[in-house]
C-alpha cells in the first residue's frame, strides 16, 4: 500500500522560512509607517499573502502532500473569493438604479450637518431630495 515515505522538512529549511517570515513582518510594519498613497494596502496584502503562502507550502508541507489536499485548500480559498466578490457586487454598486439610494439616511443627515456648519446658507437641501 505504502508508496512514498513521508516528507521530512530539514531544520535548516524551516529556520530559513521562519527567518523570512520575521523579516516580512518587520518589513510590513515599517512600510505601513510610510505614506505610499494608494500603494499601502496592496503592499501590506502582498506581504501577507507571501507570508501565508510560505506557511502553507513549507510549514504545512502542502508542497509534498497529496494533491487532493491542495485541491481542497484551493477550493476553500476560491469560495472565500466568491463570497467576497459577489457581496461586493452588491455593496459597491448599491443604488445603481433609482430603486435604492447609494448612501444611508444617516449619511445624508451627517453630510447635511457638515454642509450647514461650513456654510449655513448652502444647507437648503430638501429632505426629499436624494443625492444620486
Amino acid at each position, binding site marked *: 500500500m505504502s508508496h512514498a515515505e513521508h516528507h521530512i522538512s530539514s531544520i535548516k529549511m524551516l529556520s530559513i522560512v521562519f527567518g523570512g517570515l520575521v523579516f516580512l513582518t518587520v518589513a510590513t510594519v515599517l512600510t505601513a509607517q510610510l505614506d505610499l498613497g494608494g500603494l499601502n494596502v496592496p503592499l501590506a496584502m502582498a506581504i501577507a499573502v507571501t507570508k501565508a503562502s510560505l506557511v502553507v507550502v513549507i510549514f504545512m508541507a502542502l508542497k509534498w502532500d497529496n494533491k487532493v489536499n491542495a485541491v481542497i485548500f484551493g477550493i476553500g480559498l476560491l469560495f472565500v473569493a466568491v463570497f467576497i466578490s459577489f457581496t461586493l457586487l452588491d455593496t459597491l454598486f448599491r443604488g445603481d438604479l433609482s430603486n435604492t439610494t447609494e448612501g444611508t*439616511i444617516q449619511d445624508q443627515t451627517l453630510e447635511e450637518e457638515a454642509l450647514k456648519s461650513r456654510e449655513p446658507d448652502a444647507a437648503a437641501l430638501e429632505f*426629499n431630495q436624494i443625492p444620486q
Partner: protein
Amino acid sequence: MGDKGVFWLPDAMSTFAGEVDALFWFVFWTSTVLFVAVVAAKLYFMFRYKRRDETSVPDPVHESKLLESAWIVVPTLLVLFVFIWGFDVYLRMNTAPPDAYEITVRGKQWAWEFEYAEGVTTFTEMYVPVGRPVKLVMSSSDVLHSFFVPAFRVKQDLVPNRYSSVWFEATQTGEFQIYCTEYCGTAHSAMLAKVVVVSEEEFASWITEQSQDLPPVELGAQLFAQCALCHAVDGTTKIGPALNGIFGTQQKLTDGTSVLVDEDFILESILNPAIKVAEGFQPIMPAGYSGMTPKQLDGLVAYIKSLK
C-alpha cells in the same frame, strides 16, 4: 375592487404590467409544453417498456450525441432569451422617469404613511392621479417591510435608514390593494392599504381639500387610522385594549399597579409604549409612533380624550 383579476394574474393596471404579463405567459406556456412532453414520455415509457419477462435484461441504449447536445443547447438559448427579455423589463421597472410625481412612503409596524409634497399625510389610502408616473420614495422606521401592489406588478423592500423607491403609472382609475410582503411582526398580515387611482382633476381638488388645517380632534381622528389596527373604539378587544371611554378611568397595569388615564399617560403610552403596559396585554406596541410632530400628538391625544 378591480384587482380580482383573471385566472393566475390579476388585471394589469399599470403601464409595464402588461410587459411583465407577456413575459410571464411566455415562460408559463413554454414550461407547460415542455412539462407535458416530459410527463407524456414518462407515462408512455412506463407502460410501453413495462417488465413482462422476469429474465429480461435489456442492453444499454447508445446515446445520440446530437440529441444530448440538443438537450443542452436548445434550453440554453431559450433561457438566455428569457433572461434578456426579463432584464430589459426589469431595467425600465426600476428607472423612474425624472418628471414623476413623488410621494414619500413610510412603513412602520403596522401601518403605511403616505406623505405628499403639498404637506398632506394619509394612512390607509394613497391617492394617485391616473396616467401620470408616480414615484414612491420609501423608508421604514423600524423593521423591514415590503411595498406590493399586485395590480401594478411592483414590489420593493423598505429598509430602515435607507431610501428605496418604486414607480408606476396607473392606466385606469379604481382602488387597488397594497400589501406588506416582508414579515414584520404580529400584525404583518393586517398591514394593508389601498391605492386610489383618480383622474388628474379629482386628484388636484382632493389634495387642496386635504391640505387645509384641521381642528385637533379631526386631525387626531385621521391619524388614528394607523392605530385602528390594534385599538378598537367600540369597546372590543383587539391586539391592544379598546380606547373609548377610558379617559379619566383607572387602568390596571401588568405590574399590578394602576394608573389614571390622563393626557400625560396617553402621551407616554404613544412615545414609550413598553413602560406601562395594560393588564392582559403583551408589550408589543412598537415605539415607531414617537416620530410624530407635537401638533399631531396633540391631535391624537385630543381625539382619544373625545372618545366616549
